[in-house]
């Protein structure tokens, strides 16, 4: 068997390949991006693509699944928020070819705006969820997800976290299965969710989830490793490895099938040990379930709710062991090294001007969010993809013309395409007068230079239509549109002053290639 060192995300791509996935779709987002990049690079038999956003990606995948192909969507945790609408209803319709959703959470918010725990989606949307603990498991569990999906007619979520996605380990490569395309049968009672169809489907999925609960109790994905029965630890994901590292003698129940949780296995384990602990990152998801089963358990009293876990956090919590070091503390301050806009970054020219003009800046998600930090300190609101433009309009509704004449929204090219078009329609439709600056650096930069609908290239490297921002924005009804290179600093400043002053909607398309691109 060939062995290879692989990133967790590469292992997932390999798992999809071995499971004979035919369609893979996503939107870039750390820590999930390399899944589709790997598929496009190494497994060219899979039709892979970047969609404009995660909602579109999941819907495309739902279509491929219903049409009979094993299909997979990949996105970061906040991407699943964007895709939550299709998620909840495609849970009802179920699948034809397998439908697997890879969801990458980011405890510690290494590269995200929040630390949400997407295990809650599995429960809320009634979708089975499995969680690998390592790159090797990431490959195997992804393959298993495809099988479970078809066996139980459910989409399946594979939840990984940053320390699975971006950790490397040895993976054994297997052969690609050969799974033929399934027949597509016209079946509106399953695939058209009018209320009369949705109600019986709801009953069906509750029945399926009950079968999956039984499956979870028998599945090897939930594994008891008996050790000393004085202490039993229930754990999942990467935390399993921290537990094995610092408590090698204790009994462990490793949860790999997270939803539905294996209540019989949990009971068997809890009854056999003297003291029961749950070690899990993020919310007390398993812990609350264990408590609901009536067991006394220690969890979030000693395991942090905030941030990601580390071996020493688990060691301190369970063994009260402090890390050893024989090096004294350095007496002076060690200055931090926060990420920053690169030297010569085109966004830098724009933010220098915005800082100078001292306008309120409604920001968005991308490299340019770093303009909130010195030396620019030029961002005053930011929340999620596209919110710059809608919040900008909200500012105007709340505070009127004076605010609109002293503020801008800034949004990147890919982010605008992802979620900025509808709020711009909102401004025009509802007679707002705000100014939007599209920071078009010709690439999705933050996540490592992915193509998008405005770059003229697909994920698989083919030439394609290049979205024309000027034509799009004009079609929405914005009459004042200026496309300008931000390196023309004086001209750019004049344009910003003029457009912000104009009492009607305006869009400035700041176009200059990312400095890191050749």
């Amino acid at each position: 068997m060939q062995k290879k060192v692989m990133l967790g995300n590469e292992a997932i791509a390999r798992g999809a390949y071995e499971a004979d996935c035919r369609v893979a779709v996503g939107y870039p987002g750390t820590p999930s991006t390399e899944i589709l990049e790997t598929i496009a690079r190494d497994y060219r038999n899979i039709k892979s693509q970047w969609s404009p956003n995660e909602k579109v990606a999941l819907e495309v995948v739902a279509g491929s699944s219903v049409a009979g192909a094993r299909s997979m969507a990949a996105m970061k945790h906040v991407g699943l928020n964007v895709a939550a609408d299709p998620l909840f209803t495609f849970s009802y319709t179920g699948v034809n070819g397998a439908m697997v959703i890879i969801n990458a959470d980011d405890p510690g918010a290494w590269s995200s705006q929040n630390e949400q725990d997407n295990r809650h989606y599995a429960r809320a949307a009634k979708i089975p969820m499995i969680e690998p603990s390592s790159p090797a498991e990431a490959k195997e569990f992804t393959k298993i997800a495809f099988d479970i999906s078809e066996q139980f007619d459910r989409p399946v979520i594979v939840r990984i976290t940053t320390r699975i996605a971006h950790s490397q380990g040895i993976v054994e490569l297997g052969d690609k299965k050969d799974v033929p395309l399934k027949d597509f049968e016209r079946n509106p009672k399953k695939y058209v969710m009018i209320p009369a169809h949705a109600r019986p489907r709801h009953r069906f999925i509750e029945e399926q989830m009950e079968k999956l609960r039984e499956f979870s109790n028998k599945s090897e994905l939930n594994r008891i490793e008996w050790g000393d029965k004085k202490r039993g630890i229930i754990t999942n994901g990467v935390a399993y490895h921290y537990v094995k590292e610092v408590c090698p003698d204790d009994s462990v129940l490793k949860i790999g099938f997270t939803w539905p949780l294996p209540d019989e296995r949990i009971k068997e384990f809890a009854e056999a040990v003297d003291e029961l602990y749950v070690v899990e990152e993020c919310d007390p998801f398993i812990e609350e379930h264990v408590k609901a089963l009536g067991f006394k358990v220690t969890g979030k009293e000693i395991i942090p709710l905030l941030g990601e876990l580390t071996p020493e956090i688990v060691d301190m919590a369970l063994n009260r062991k402090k890390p050893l070091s024989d090096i004294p503390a350095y007496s002076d301050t060690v200055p931090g090294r926060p990420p920053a806009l690169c030297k010569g970054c085109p966004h830098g020219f724009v933010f220098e001007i915005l800082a100078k003009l001292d306008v309120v800046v409604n920001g968005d998600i991308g490299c340019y969010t770093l303009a909130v930090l010195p030396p620019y300190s030029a961002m005053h609101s930011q929340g999620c993809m596209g919110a710059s433009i809608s919040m900008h309009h909200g500012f105007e509704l709340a505070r009127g013309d004076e605010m609109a004449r002293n503020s801008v929204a800034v949004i990147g090219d890919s982010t605008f395409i992802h979620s900025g078009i509808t709020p711009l329609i909102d401004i025009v439709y509802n007679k707002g007068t705000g100014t939007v600056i599209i920071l078009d650096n010709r690439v999705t930069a933050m996540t490592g230079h992915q193509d998008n609908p405005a770059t003229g290239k697909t994920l698989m490297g083919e030439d394609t239509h290049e979205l024309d921002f000027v034509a799009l924005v004009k079609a929405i009804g914005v009459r004042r549109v200026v496309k300008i290179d931000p390196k023309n600093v004086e001209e750019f400043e004049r344009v910003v002053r003029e457009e912000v002053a104009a009492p009607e909607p305006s869009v400035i398309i700041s176009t200059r290639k990312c400095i890191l691109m050749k």
Partner: protein
Amino acid sequence: MKNVIFAGVGGQGVILASKILMEVAMNAGYDVKESEVHGMAQRGGSVDCHVRYGEKVYSPLIERGTADYVVSFELLEIMRKLDFLRPGGKAIINKLQINPAPVEAGLATYPGDLDQWLRSNVKDVTIVDAEPVLSEVKSKRALNIVMLGILSHYLEFSLDQWTAAIRGMVKEKFVDMNLFAFEKGRALASQQ
């Protein structure tokens, strides 16, 4: 079990260094795991990689106080990792100074006494100047390979094992340059 941390600044090639070490360790028959950072954290920010190899590796992250080696590609970055070193662990440091953004903006000061402080407070420390080697190999980008060359002096793997991994992991046209940089680094360590 060996625990190695590579630390540096985004763009210095920390991840490739860790990948090469992993390849060497796997080919030598060890289990290996690694953890790295991508995305926002890379934009000129601090970057680190944890590499662990041994009979059986569980955690991809190294527990504080248990690292055998911390290899820092930049002088300030070692300061964030010192608490990972086990008592008696070794720090290998390139004396290059790269100002973080707050220092560039005049909001913070780059400490002036680090070299001296490290020599008097870390028992096993090797501080090198990779600059002359980089001039000799005519590539600033080879810093990661030079640092790996220094580290290799202290690890159990043979020159052949390293050479094979480097050949397999860098672009063909850069192989000779990188092998040269590696051997220069290895020589730098034996001069310490």
